[in-house]
């Protein structure tokens, strides 16, 4: 136990006061972008210039103006209001889906890596099979399989993101667990007679925290794109809820008449992902991990 506790302070040293000055540039820029997005989303959840589903807020298709910075859509809804209201939906769905995928994937991966043997073999084959199905195809098939009653519900999107992510996270967690399982403090814990769950969640999980934190950040970066792609293809959140991917696809007919109506929400989505990516990049450098974008 002494080993785990003594390694704690050094691992979380960057939480000390004044750590902001020592953080890498990308991390700072990313953090600022993300804070701006969160504040915008909180504001948009409570107040928007017009109602997000209010038709006739102005002349349909009249383009961008001071009252309507992103113009109006085909049925006269103010696109900026929809964009603003959609911000918290995009953030909440991304966060909930990634957290759920993290919990499932980490539990499975750590147990699989630590226990080993047949359990590991079977888990790995299933994980491998799930990763082999291109993630967008897997997501779409699951949405179809859920049936019309659940289609377009936020809860389904959260589950789909989690199910796409869980096997990929499990693979990372397993590799970390296998490496940590060979260390002395795990052997000591085994000698003390600690149970499997206790070792996995008290020794291995804590020591895999850095790897998992970077993985979480990396997955969170991609979640808005995945959710946006589902919306864009017409399999995401049910209209009229203004998810950004859905809005981009709804307004694609206006590309010639009013490009800002399409690229406004697009810019919002891109800047959110840029914020996440910069944040992840800086975080992985601070934690001494290498973040690799990958399936």
């Amino acid at each position, binding site marked *: 136990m002494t080993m785990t506790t003594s390694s704690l302070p050094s691992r979380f040293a960057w939480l000390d006061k004044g750590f902001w000055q020592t953080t890498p540039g990308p991390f700072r820029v990313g953090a600022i972008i993300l804070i701006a997005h969160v504040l915008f989303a909180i504001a948009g959840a409570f107040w928007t210039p017009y109602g997000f589903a209010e038709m006739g807020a102005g002349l349909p298709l009249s383009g961008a103006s001071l009252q309507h910075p992103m113009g109006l859509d085909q049925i006269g809804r103010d696109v900026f209001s929809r964009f603003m209201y959609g911000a918290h939906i995009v953030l909440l769905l991304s966060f909930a889906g990634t957290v759920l995928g993290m919990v499932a994937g980490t539990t499975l991966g750590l147990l699989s890596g630590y226990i080993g043997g047949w359990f590991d073999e079977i888990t790995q*084959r*299933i994980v*491998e*099979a*799930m*990763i*082999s*199905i*291109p*993630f*967008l*195809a*897997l997501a*779409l*098939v*699951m949405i*179809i*399989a*859920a*049936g*019309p*009653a659940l289609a377009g519900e936020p809860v389904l999107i959260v589950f789909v993101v989690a199910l796409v992510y869980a096997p990929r996270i499990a693979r990372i967690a397993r590799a970390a667990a296998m490496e940590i399982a060979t260390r002395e403090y795990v052997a000591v814990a085994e000698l003390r007679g600690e149970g499997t769950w206790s070792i996995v969640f008290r020794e291995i999980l804590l020591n895999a925290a850095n790897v998992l934190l970077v993985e979480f950040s990396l997955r969170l*970066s991609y979640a*808005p*794109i995945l959710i*946006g*792609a589902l919306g*864009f*293809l*017409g*399999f995401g959140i049910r209209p009229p809820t203004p998810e950004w*991917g859905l809005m*981009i*696809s709804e307004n*694609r007919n206006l*590309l*010639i008449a009013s*490009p800002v109506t*399409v*690229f406004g929400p*697009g810019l919002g*989505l*891109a800047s959110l*992902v*840029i914020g*996440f*990516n*910069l944040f992840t*990049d800086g975080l992985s450098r601070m934690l001494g991990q290498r973040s*690799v*974008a*990958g*399936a």
Partner: protein
Amino acid sequence: MSVARLLFSRILFSALTLLLVSILIFLILEALPGDVATRILGRDATAKALEVLRSQLHLNQPALVRYFQWIGDFLRGDLGVSIATGRPIADVLAPRILNTLLLSLLAFAIYLVLALVPAIIQAVNRGKAVDNVISMITLLLLSLPDFLLATMLLFLFAVAVPILPALATISETSTWQETLRAMVLPAVTLAIMMAVYAIRVLRDSLIEVLRSDYVRLAELKGLRPRAVLFRHALPNAIVPALNVTALNLGFLIGGVVIVERVFSYPGFGTLLIDALQLRDIPLIKATVMISAAVYVAANLVADVLAVLLQPRLRTSR
């Protein structure tokens, strides 16, 4: 001997993975609790419509029997019949796969240039302004959702500066010039998406290789810098990029779906979306199985190539 054995075990594992994929797809689509026919047609469907669909999908038989029937037919090359069109799935799939293959080949050619040139420039000028600027651009492009990138390129080159067609609708009657022109925008979108992942890895591995002893030796021998770069450094630096490309194929197949959708290109991806929208279960099963097979096969090839290109991996087994 050891290479042959390695190859054999990899092929065996790939086959096992695909078998598991088929079980997973079947479980998700047909064996979830609840009535499959009602899930496909919705709750308002008439009893007669439900009955017709049940007999089309052989839903009256137990799930286990249906699974073995499907996978047995599949392995014998009989992909079944599409519910929506009533045509054999093989006939529906063949032209779409050909179109997507054509698009992928063009995209791959563009990708090679888009990935290699910036990575080489970065590695040769590491730490300088060019290196940082290219890093910044790749990070920005990495953050662009594929559907947004496709829409932006469409806006730039088909609306703002109309030099290319916005819709890539090709048919048997179009000439090869028309086909090629229609394919440029979707192919470039795919190539950029692939390249941004590869550039970072390729840059890092090139820098590492350029620092290695044998590159130093080649330089000391008095070889021209260009010869050192292209003959000694590049072949060794490509292996990690190869693996990343294969791993990211899952992203790419998703990208193909979206890019084909944006440009209305009649390929495999639009077929998958159509099948999903029409709830055409036999067609969905076939398309997803094929896309998984492509992913597994590509990873197998990347594994084997990595072993063949890097003697170190051969002996470590």
